[in-house]
Structure formats: structure tokens, C-alpha cells
């Protein structure tokens, strides 16, 4: 390969590495022990209780770090699309918000960690997204308000090749269309 091309390539790579998004601060690393029902970091906002579902004059609860609605990630075990109990309050809060706020629409984006087949992971991400959507519907959200998409393992949140990174990449992201 031509040396200047090679140098340009290297430069490209360096730039790309630097532009990698930083780790999401405070993103919960998956708890491998059986859930005891105590809420982790992701569900600490549920204390706001019944009022979590409606927009208040005080600001947009979707952006309020104190509200459970600011938590937008559901994490999964390896090769699993079972929604763990600890995420039910979070999903319920979003379902209520969708129900209460006319015109809001949501995209649930399923993702997988880097291990195994890219295509199987596309299907697995799909299942993960559908699992959260179904649970939202059980909590009363309208089906038409939620679209699901899978990115498989193509869009990792965290670059890394260990369980710490994998746990953060096996996830559904909840996105409010037109708001986020």
C-alpha cells in the first residue's frame, strides 16, 4: 500500500477512536445475582409514584434526572429476551406516560453484545425490543404509539471486549420520537 494512503488511514483511525462516545456515566452494569426486588440505579426514580406519568409545569419529566422517565435503558442477560423484574417499574412508568400524553410516540431499539452471529443478534435485538413493547402494552400503552427496531450488535453503546462492556450493550433503548 502506498505510504501516504497508509498514513491517511492511520490518521482516520485515530480520529475515529477519539470520536468514540464516552461511556455513559452511571449506566448500570448488569447485576448477575438473582433480583431480590430491590430497585437498582435504573429504577430509583419510581418513588415519584403516580405522578410520574404526566408532564408537570415544573418541566419535562422525560428530561428530569429525578424522574424514572429519564431512565431509558433495559438490560438483558446473554442470549435472553426475558425482561427482568427490576425493569418493570421503569416500563410501567413509560407506558403510563405514553397513555397520558397524546401525540407522543416511542421507538424501542433492541441491541445485543458483540458475541456470536450478527444475524442471530439482529433477531435477538428484535425480540428484546418486542418484549419491552409487549410489556408496555400490558401496562396500557397503545400499540400504534410504539415502534420497534433491532440493530443487533451493530451499535454497541460501549466499546470493549469484556463482560462489563457486553452487559451494557445487551439492551433496549427507549427513544421518544421527536423529543429525544
Amino acid at each position, binding site marked *: 500500500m502506498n505510504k501516504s494512503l497508509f498514513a491517511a488511514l*492511520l490518521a482516520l*483511525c485515530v480520529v475515529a477512536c477519539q470520536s468514540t462516545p464516552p461511556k455513559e456515566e452511571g449506566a448500570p452494569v448488569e447485576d448477575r445475582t438473582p433480583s431480590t426486588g430491590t430497585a437498582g440505579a435504573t429504577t430509583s426514580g419510581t418513588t415519584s409514584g403516580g405522578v410520574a406519568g404526566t408532564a408537570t409545569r415544573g418541566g419535562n419529566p422525560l428530561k428530569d434526572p429525578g424522574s424514572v422517565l429519564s431512565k431509558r435503558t433495559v438490560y438483558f442477560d446473554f*442470549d435472553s429476551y426475558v425482561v427482568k423484574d427490576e425493569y418493570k417499574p421503569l416500563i410501567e412508568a413509560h407506558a403510563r406516560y405514553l397513555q397520558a400524553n397524546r401525540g407522543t410516540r416511542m421507538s424501542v431499539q433492541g441491541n445485543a453484545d458483540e458475541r456470536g*452471529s450478527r*444475524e442471530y443478534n439482529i433477531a435477538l435485538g428484535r425480540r428484546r425490543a418486542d418484549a419491552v413493547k409487549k410489556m408496555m402494552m400490558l401496562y396500557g400503552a397503545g400499540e400504534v404509539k410504539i415502534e*420497534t427496531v433491532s440493530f443487533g450488535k451493530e451499535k454497541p453503546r460501549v466499546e470493549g471486549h469484556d463482560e462489563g462492556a457486553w452487559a451494557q450493550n445487551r439492551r433496549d433503548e427507549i427513544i421518544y420520537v421527536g423529543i429525544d
Partner: protein
Amino acid sequence: MPLLLRCLALVCLLATNAALAQLTIEIVGGGATAIPIAIVPFRGQEGYPLSLTSVIGADLERSGRLRLIDPGGVNPRPARPEEVRFGDWTSRGADAVVVGSVGPQADGRVEVRFALLDVIKQTQLAGFTYAVLPTQLRATAHRIADVIYEKLTGDVGVFSTRIAYIAKQGSRFQLDVADADGFNPQTVVTSNEPLLSPVWSPDGTRIAYVSLENKKPVIYVQSLATGGRQVIANFRGSNSAPAWSPDSSKLAVTLSKDGGSQLYVINADGSGVQRLTNSAGIDTEANFAPDGRSILFTSDRGGSPQIYRLTLASGAIERMTYEGTYNVSPRHLPDGKGFVFVRRDGGVFNIALEDFATRQVQVLTQGTLDESPSVAPNGKLVLYASNTGGRGILAAVSSDGRVKQRLTAAAIDVREPAWGPLAK
């Protein structure tokens, strides 16, 4: 609609811009029973920018089936069969010797002559003369390597075939096509969103692949001759895992338009979609048998991802893998006698081969995250994606597990290899 605009901006075709992702091949292990062969530098080749015998030698050595014997010290160097003194070669331990010449023709083309001789039997096994353009010298070297390989091993040579793969540079993805030895990379499509699952049509004219440029998986088919591309499946939900039928007329695909991910078959122009499977779980990664009568696929219908076979005429479905809890990505061997796949064992993912008759499984690779196997059209090598130091590389292993190679590109992530068909 902003989404549409974004998609238009993302994809551009680079028909002429050679990809920067030149692959370099490194042989990691070799076969013990390789045939010793001496390749005498062709008379006159020093007048050309390409050393034909270097390309031929590299091809043959990479196969793991032949071993190069140094022709140095034989003087004068033979260029024609009648100039070969067999004693020179028996004393060097060569079982076969290749001689040849390169020179200009009056019409501007180059004449390449070569002969392959059996040193033990003292007979000529093959001899050809080619008249080619100077730009075709490398292709001619591959063709000569194919002839030698076929005569000495009895198997079809794949040195004139091409491979496709996805290269990732920073946040940019490109689908590249290169010669089987990694040379002459050409970029077929680039995107700022992930590309995956390239597969060659069996007639070698088109590549089907999946792109996320529409913010979801959509299947495209692209012509290699014109660069023109067509959306084959863009239904609601995911459109993924394309697999060509042996006659290149149809594709088996995975769609989630009716709920979960299920197998469908669709015409190569995107018309006539028909559902193939009906399960409550995930069905994906279809791969047609060479005779087109059955399909291998991955399904979690039994609780964990395993490989199943669907017989198209009867609709019968049979489970093919039982060992372990993660067996995925089945690809048939070209002779239809077995398949390679990815299996997870003890937390690592490796390429394995299962024989249909005996149901025996042989693990071929020792990486930690090996995936995406693609079998050479002669069935002798399996190309797959692996990684080193967190970076994606391509690797190849012989289907008996003995010969291993690594194909790397400087500072670029390479994945999703697909071996093209034999040149027609």
C-alpha cells in the same frame, strides 16, 4: 421526510476508487503432507512489473497442500519442458517442477507459457500458452496456480475466485470485493451506517447484503457490473439474512413483518414473497443446500439457538445440532455432505464442521469470537471473521482444520467475509 434525505446522503457508490483495505495474508500453520514443488522463475518475467512465479508460488503455498522447493542453483534455468534435467529436481526433493516464459507479442499482448512436469514419472502433466493484456498478468498467474493445484491434488483450484467482506474505518462501513489473495480490492458500496451479511449470487454477478442506512435492517441486491442496486426487502420490521438459491433466481430471507423473525423466500427482484417457517421463536440465517431442495437455518424453537434443516418439498423440519446451547450460522459444504457453523463452548465461539452422514462435529478453529463462516467453492477452505487485539480480522482454515491463515488490513476492522463462486 428527513429520514429519506438522510438515507440519500449516506450512500454513495465508488465504482473506481480502489478500497484502502488491502488485505495481507499470513500463513499460521501448514499441512504435514504437502506436495514438494519447485517453481523456476519464468524466463523473461523480470521485464514485467509482476513476478508471475511469486504469485503462483504464494497461491500454492497458501493452500497448505503444496510446499515450495527452492529452485536456486540450477543453471541454466529451464524454461521449456525439454530443458528440464529431472536429476536436478529429484536431488532437491521436488516431486513436481514448473517452468515457463513471458514475452511480448507483436500485437502488444503478452505471451505466457508454462509447463508442469512430474519429476518422479518424468512426464508432463500440463502445458498452456496464454496471450493476455499486461493488466491480466496477475489473473493469469492465478489461473496457472489453479491448473497446477488441480493436477497435483485432484481438487478444483480457487485462486481465480474473489471474496467480499465488510471493512470498517472509523465510523464508515464499506463492502469490498477483492481477489482471493486479498489483492485488487474494490469498494462496492460505502455507508455511515453498518453493513452486514454480504452473499454472492451463485452466478457471481450480484451481491446481496443488509444495510442499516434506513435506521433498520433492509436487504439490497447490487450488480457488480453496473453498480446499480435494488431494494429486495424493506417490509415493516427487520429485513435480514439473505441467502441465494443455487440458480440465483430467489433469496431466502428473514423478515419480522408478521411478528417474530421468520424465514421467507422472495424472487431476486423483490417480488413474490412467500413464508417458509411458522414458529413462535426466532428463525433466521437460512442457507440453501447445493441441490436447492433443503435449507439449513438457525432457530431457538427448542429453547436455545440450534441448527435445523427444512426440506422444501415436504415442509419437514429436523434438528441438526444437539451439543451445546449455541449453534448458529450454518453454511453448506459445496458437495452437500455437511455444513460449517459457529458453536459456543465454554464461553468461546468457534467454527465447526458437521458431517450429515455421521453427525460427527469437528471444531476447526481456536479463536475466542470466531463467526461468519464462508466456504470456498472447492470446499477445502473456510473463511471466517475473527479478531486480534479487539480488532476484526479475517482468517481461513482448511476444512480438515490443519492449515490456518490470517488476512489482515492495516488499522482497519474487517468482518463478514463471503467467498465468491468459481469463475465461469
